[in-house]
Structure formats: C-alpha cells, structure tokens
C-alpha cells in the first residue's frame, strides 16, 4: 500500500502565483493527497529501461519559409488589455 502523500499546498500555491483561501488549501491538501496516492500506482512498473515520451508522435520542429507577414496593429494588440496608456500596456510597478 502506498504511503499517504503529503503535499505542501501553500508552498506550491506560492510557486504557481495563485492565492488560495485557507479552506481551499485544506481541501486541496486532502484531495490531491488522494490523487497522488493513486498516482503511486505507477511505481509498480519497472521503467528503468524505458525512454520518456514527451510527445505522442515523435515529430520535431516543422519549419516554414521565413517570410514577413502582417501582424497586429498597436490598437489591435492593446484591444484586450486590462490597462493601457500611450499605446502601451500598463503593468504593475516592478522597481522601487
């Protein structure tokens, strides 16, 4: 039987830049513990000689001709911006 998996949800939430309420943190802790316990099933298999499959089909970069194409105008690019000014995205201050 697999060991119960302890996941530090508060720490992971900081890594993911995602605020959680205390209730969500507790709930996810329990639910994801069960999901990871289920995932322990994968340990039953000996995968030491198996190559990882990052993709379903082994295809690699398919290139097209590098020709200039029309892109968005400034107005179009900004049309979904939550905040904008002077043709620019307004972002939250990152330097003191």
């Amino acid at each position, binding site marked *: 039987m697999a060991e119960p998996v302890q*996941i530090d*949800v508060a720490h*992971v*939430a*900081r*890594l*993911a*830049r*995602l*605020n*959680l309420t205390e209730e*969500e943190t507790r709930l*996810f802790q329990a*639910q*994801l513990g*069960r*999901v*990871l316990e*289920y*995932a322990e*099933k*994968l*340990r*039953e*298999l000996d*995968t030491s000689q*198996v*190559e*990882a*499959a*990052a*993709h*379903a*089909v082994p*295809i690699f*970069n*398919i*290139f*097209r*001709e590098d020709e200039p194409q029309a892109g*968005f105008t400034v107005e*179009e*690019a900004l*049309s*979904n*911006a*939550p*905040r904008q000014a002077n043709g620019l*995205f307004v*972002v*939250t*201050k*990152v330097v003191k």
Partner: protein
Amino acid sequence: MRAADLPALSIAELRTLLHQREVSPREVLEALRSRIAEVEPAIEAYLSLDFDDAFKQAERADVNLPLGGVPIAIKDMISVAGQPCTCASKILQNYRALYDATVVRKLRAAGAIPFGKTNMDEFAIGASTENSGVKLTRNPWDISRVPGGSSGGSAAAVAADAAFGALGTDTGGSVRQPAALSGVVGLKPSYGRVSRFGLVAFASSLDQAGPLTKTVRDSALMMNAIAGPDAQDSTCLNDAVPDYAAGLERDLRGIRLGLPKEYMIEGIDSQVRAAVEKAVAHFASLGAEIIDVSLPHTEYAIASYYLIASAEASANLARFDGVRYGHRAENPLNLFDHYSRTREEGFGSEVKRRIILGTYVLSSGYYEAYYARAQKVRTLIRQDFAEAFGRVDALISPTSPVPAFPLGERSSDPLQMYLADVFTNAANLAGICGISLPCGFAQTENGRDLPIGLQLLGKALDEARILQIAHAYEQSTDWHTRRPPLDKDNDQPA
C-alpha cells in the same frame, strides 16, 4: 420542407438542399435561430451567439463549396475573429479573439458559417461541463444529467438539433465522452492531424480539435474541411489528407476488430456492457473478424494522463497573468500580489486544483518521481497500441463506463470525475485517433433513455478507416435516428 424541420437535418442532407437551391443559407440560419430559442432555455449549450454576423456571412455564402452555407458551432476555446473566446472562465470573460483559429479559417474556406460559441468545462478541464465558470449545460436526453465534457455545450447543441455540427477539443476524451453521453458522433483526430493554431492550450502534447456531428458522414465532411498541414502550427503533420467521405461505403469484410480484454472491467454499467457486447456481435454479422487483444498497461493510463495533463496545464495557464489581456485584480500591492490575486479571482476551483497538482509534479524534488515516470509509462502505453495495431485494424470498447450521470453527483470528488475518462485518455497519450458513436440506450429508473457510446480506436492517421467502420455500423442500425424528448416531458429539472 417546413422551416421547422430544417434543424433536424444532418450536414449532408442540408448541403444537398442548399446545393439544389431548395433552401437559402438565410432560411437555414433563421430556422436554426428559432430552434436555439426554443431549446436553449432548457439545455443552455451556448455561451455567445452572433446571428447578426452570421446573416452577413450567409449573404456572401457560396453554396457550391463543400460546407457552403452550413452553420457550425464552435467550442469557446477556439478563436473566431471578433467573437468572445472565454474558455468558460472568468479570467477571459471580456476577451475577444483577434483572429481565426486555423480550423475556423478552414471551415470558412469550405463555406461554413460560425455563429456561436459553446459552453465547456473551464479551459477544457473536466468531464461534465460542470466546471464551466459561466453556467451549467444540461443533457438533452434528461436535463437533470450532465452532457459530458469538456465539450459538453457542443455535444448538447448537436444532440438537441441546436447545431448541425460543432467543433470541440479532446485532450483526454473531451470530444468522445460528451458525444457518447449526449448521443452524437465525436471524432478525436490523431495528434498532429488538425492544426491547433488559435486554440487556447490545455495540455500541448495531448490536445486535438475534432468534430461533433449527428452522423459519421458529417464527421468525415467536417474532417475534410479541417485536417491537414498548417504553416502556423509546427506540431501539425505534413501528411496528405485523404477524402474521408470517399471510402465510407466500403464493407467490413476482412476488417479485424480488436477487443481489449482490459477494457471490459468491473465498474462498467451493465447496460453499457450489454450494448457494447451486442455491437461487437453486430460487427461480426457485418463480416468483421473479432480478435481478443491485450493492452496490458491500461490500468496505468489514468495516473499517467493526469500527471502529464496537469503538468502541461500548469505551464500553459501561466500565461494568464492579467497583463496583456483578461481579468486583472484591482490595486495590487506589488507584482506578486498582482499575479496571485488576478489568478485567484479569475480561475475556478478545478482549474486551481490542477494548477497546484501540475506545479507540484514539476517542482524540484518531485519531477522525476511523478512527471518523468508518467512520461515513461506513456511510452509503455504507446507500445501496447503499436503491438495491438499490428494484429487488428481498430479497437472497440465503450466510450464511457457509464451513461450520463446526474448533475452534482461527481463534482465533489475529483478522483471519481477523473475515472470518467478511463477508456478515452490512453488514445491521447498514444496520439492515435478515436471516434464515439451511438450504440444503444440505457434506461433509468424513472424510464428515461440515456444514450450509450461505442468507441473505435485507430492507429495514428487512420481516421478514414475508423470512419468507414463506424459508418458501416451506423448505417445498419438506427440509434442515430433517435432524438431526445425535448419537446415532451423533459422540460422540468428533476
């Protein structure tokens, strides 16, 4: 033909009428709009409709094109220029797409008319459409039940004759499973067969767009329009596209169908099992050879799938940061607070859960144990299919172990919901193609009929073959001709 009868037509029937100028694209749109107005209060399949724009397209429609004048519904995860593309998420509630996804551009080039965006589980994460951040969609066969998911709006709309056909996306079963639960045909193309440019990404090594339709022929007609290479998607294969409708009429003599013994597991609803066993016997009577096969790593597919899909989702959803588009939290204290509260306010519960799971399995110290191991198991699952397809032309199984379940029944237990994809998600891991089509009905205790879906899996790029096999079954049965009882006693939520 009366206008009120138009919405029940298949795409193939409709295009014949359009081609012969017996109806105009405008008349078709008017009939569809009336049908949507009639059934939408009960099923709520759509997130947005733009008939003003659709009528303008109808004025210019060239009915000589393969889908000329045919309205097609689009899952709200696929970009249609000028229309909302919310992924049923609050974080994108005011977002409008600036360009057409390649699949939409190709549908338009074939003459089709996009007119509305369908409901879904938020960012396609879910198997019941209950994770929509906007509203619940109900199963047209029993509106107290889910339509399946994540492409539940597309499936419910087609089932209720509120769309002639629709696009969905399938990351672990999100086209096939709602097709099964709603009683329509759903095709997941092979990885790389259909462009993903303009789709909002969920799990990039698994996602594919595919059609939901009333018939197998309609599925082939939509595939003819959307399949093929795309200079804007480097994961899209350059292989030539066959005419998927051309080979449909071939018979099944010489076709070998594999029955994976691991798929007839405990926990399959007895009526689902009986319907699938009957379908297998029917295939034998049509001349197909039935062969027992084994996919020994089946029981590891769900764990592998959920680790990989969650990891990729956590990376893809990192782009929702409230800077260039989407919701942004008010008055952030600093950049960390800006990101963390924007995402807290914008994402729903299941999306948050997957972001946490995905971030965890990718984080330092756990990567090897979970993500890397899941990818190795994925190799084993792929090998299982390669071996099976050395012996058979297609595999046959239920699409879902159960028919449509009641709203709310599974939403509080994520693991239970994840098990809903048990027969579908291995195909995404292996990059192969799959189709679900109606193969019978289960009766509920209160006497309702719920559709049962049969899944056929084919090797990569073998869509033409599974369409042919599905068509032979469909044309020799009458399940696809049944319609949900929306007009009678199904108008009150149970």
